[in-house]
């Protein structure tokens, strides 16, 4: 761990929605520890909880191969006053750039997850890597 790395977490869970609370709450707990964060830590906690929850739902729905034992890997790293969340999946993946902005005037029940992640995080990417697809979400802490 480098000198400027404050926190580096990795957790692997089955790709089941019952683990959403566990993963989301880790983000919320981490925000409580950032006592040098000048912004609203309560709000940051909710945002990390939400980003992790939405990303994991995305990984379960779009990133699964449908095989028993499929997992979702999540990492959370704080380095140089930047927080990075990565959520890996093992499925076909999707094209982040093709995800449309929701029409907020209509009342579709679905399609707000990626919009929410983009709204609350500073930078979001999704790409294929040797370790599967990864949704990366960055947030500046200073």
């Amino acid at each position, binding site marked *: 761990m480098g000198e400027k790395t404050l926190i580096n977490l990795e957790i692997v869970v089955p790709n089941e*929605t*019952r683990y*959403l*609370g566990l993963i*989301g709450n880790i983000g919320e707990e981490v925000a409580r520890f950032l006592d040098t964060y000048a912004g609203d830590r*309560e*709000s940051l906690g*909710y945002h990390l*909880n*939400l980003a992790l*929850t*939405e990303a994991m*739902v995305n990984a*379960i729905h779009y990133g699964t191969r449908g095989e028993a034992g499929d997992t979702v890997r999540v990492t959370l790293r704080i380095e140089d006053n930047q927080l990075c969340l990565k959520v890996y999946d093992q499925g076909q993946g999707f094209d982040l750039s093709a995800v449309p902005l*929701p029409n*907020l*005037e209509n*009342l579709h*029940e*679905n399609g*707000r*997850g990626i*919009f*929410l992640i983009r*709204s*609350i995080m500073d930078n979001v990417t999704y790409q294929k890597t040797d370790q599967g697809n990864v949704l990366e979400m960055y947030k500046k802490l200073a």
Partner: protein
Amino acid sequence: MNISTRQQDDTLILSIEEERLDAHNSPELREFVLKLLGEGQIRFILDLSGVSFVDSSGLGVLLSGYKNVNLQSGRFCLTGLHPRVQAMFELTRLDQVFEIHASLNEALTHT
């Protein structure tokens, strides 16, 4: 999902007794409301004062309830929104769609 219910005249008050309303448990709420609608209950107040976290799936299920109740010319209103949850409604502009009240009393007296 833990939901407690209380009938007040023709209105059913549903209190969601879960900290999270998310992709894991919200489908149960959708089914619960649909079942009640099928039994003829069309006026609802959802008390979310116990809920401190809602994700996009939770919002979608609330929207589903709202739309299905509206089709029956009923009432589906929300109360007890935690400030963090209220912020989610504002971000998605759903605060302009739902009837939202600051308290259960206000929801009950407003018709």
